[in-house]
């Protein structure tokens, strides 16, 4: 698998970040170039609207620059940006849903209460699949399990980071990944290739 654990990110990531905090626009552009594809894919997996995702990314970057002097150190720039994009998209979907006339009473709670914002959003996602960008076998799983798997195995986030993105505790993040893997295993026919003991690769 191509993903390296996030803790092994290059230290020049940290140098770039501190340059951004001092107002170095070129460093800021480098951060953009380094992470935009990741953020785009991830955003699209949450919300299959390319323009919407690009706007979310735009807003995140503009916001980072606007508050660059107040930013702290981060153990991972990628993680920070993923979290920010998630928040933007989540809020955007929440707002849009609330604004749709006629659906207000039926659909949304007056105040999103505790476990429901994500569940509501999941329901919205499943009914709003317009693009087919993410035709994957993963797509059979509940959206939240899909997201947990992608963050863990495609983006290399650890459980603490996944927990923060999904707003759950670390143990729950681990359980979520575990349940997702169980579901995958049931779903995929296992093909035992000619393995001869030892490690696969």
């Amino acid at each position, binding site marked *: 698998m191509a993903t390296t654990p996030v803790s092994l990110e290059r230290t020049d990531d940290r140098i770039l970040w501190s340059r951004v905090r001092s107002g170095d626009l070129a460093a800021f552009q480098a951060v953009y170039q380094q992470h935009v594809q990741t953020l785009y894919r991830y955003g699209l997996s949450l919300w299959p609207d390319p323009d919407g995702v690009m706007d979310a990314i735009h807003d995140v970057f503009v916001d980072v620059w606007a508050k660059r002097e107040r930013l702290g150190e981060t153990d991972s720039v990628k993680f920070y940006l993923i979290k920010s994009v998630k928040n933007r998209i989540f809020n955007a979907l929440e707002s849009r849903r609330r604004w749709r006339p006629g659906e207000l009473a039926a659909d949304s709670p007056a105040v999103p209460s505790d476990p429901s914002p994500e569940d509501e959003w999941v329901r919205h996602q499943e009914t709003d699949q317009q693009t087919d960008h993410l035709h994957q076998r993963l797509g059979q799983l509940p959206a939240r399990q899909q997201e947990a798997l992608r963050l863990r195995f*495609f983006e290399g986030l650890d459980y603490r980071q996944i927990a923060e993105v999904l707003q759950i505790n670390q143990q729950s993040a681990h359980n979520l990944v575990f349940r997702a*893997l169980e579901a995958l295993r049931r779903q995929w026919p296992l093909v035992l290739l000619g393995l001869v003991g030892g*490690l696969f690769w």
Partner: protein
Amino acid sequence: MNRYAAFSAPEFVADAYFLQSHLAPDAESTAFWQAFLAEYPDRRGAYQEAQVLLGQLAEEQAQYTAIQLPPDSQRALWQRIEHQVQALPIGTAAGRRVVFPARRWSLYAAALVGLLLLSVAGWWWLQRPGTPVAYQTAYGETRRVQLPDGTQVWLNANSRLSLSGDWQPGQDRSVTLDGEAFFEVTHQTHHERFVVSGGGVRVEVLGTKFNVNTRRERTRVALREGRVKLAAEGTSLIMQPGETVEWSPKRPQLAKTAAPAENAAAWTSQRLVFDQTPLPEVAQLIEDQFGTRVEIANPALLDKRLTGEISLANEALLLEALETIYGVRARRDGTTLRLE
């Protein structure tokens, strides 16, 4: 080694050490797993199943990673970001709030009056309901900003423009203005109106270029291009290009004035244009622009009228022009400027 003794395949895959051993194998982890499998041969099945699962995930990842933002879109998105951050003030000026970055339409119909609309595929934006967006300038500062719908606004000195309400598709785009601004409003596909409120007057436009000045308890709207409907306290009128209309609480009628509309927006090119303008009014303009209190010390100057153009680039240049061209001497007395 014990904790892995009863692991199922999904448990292996979910385990951090198992994953790391497969992503970045080293001598230590290889030895560990070999020893583990030797001690717990009944785990081989689950272990190998876990490896197959990982392999299948790797295939999924390849598909996922293949989703790319095309290079030109990536570049265009960066340009949008760069453009937006460069519109933000550098650091924070003394005592003034830093403005929020404006939200963006995803595709905006950037048509000025007289141009055809480019393709519009519907529009939306990201906005937390209730988050205000406002722009503020200091004395001596003019700024150009772009609103979420593509409208360009030149904000003159000591002015504040705020977006009212939540801008939504299919609804009016409302702003309030305190000070002076020149607008180039974009025309939207569904003819959503652009409304400027300030100084007791409401300016409704479809897509056009006009100047609004709400200073000194007197609102003046000068229309350069397009059509504008003005409304104030029960009266309303429709403006034609080239006209200037004035309204104030003291004279609450929308009255057309003689001042030609082109001069009203000269400040956007850093110039002030006078056309038989009485000096007291010039003094007021200087105050409005730079925040300096101006006093006319010589009573003979009260009737003096100025015609011509001077640069607004900075106060010193302006005063120099006053002196050499118009023979009006300006002397600083503390924070006040005395004209003699």
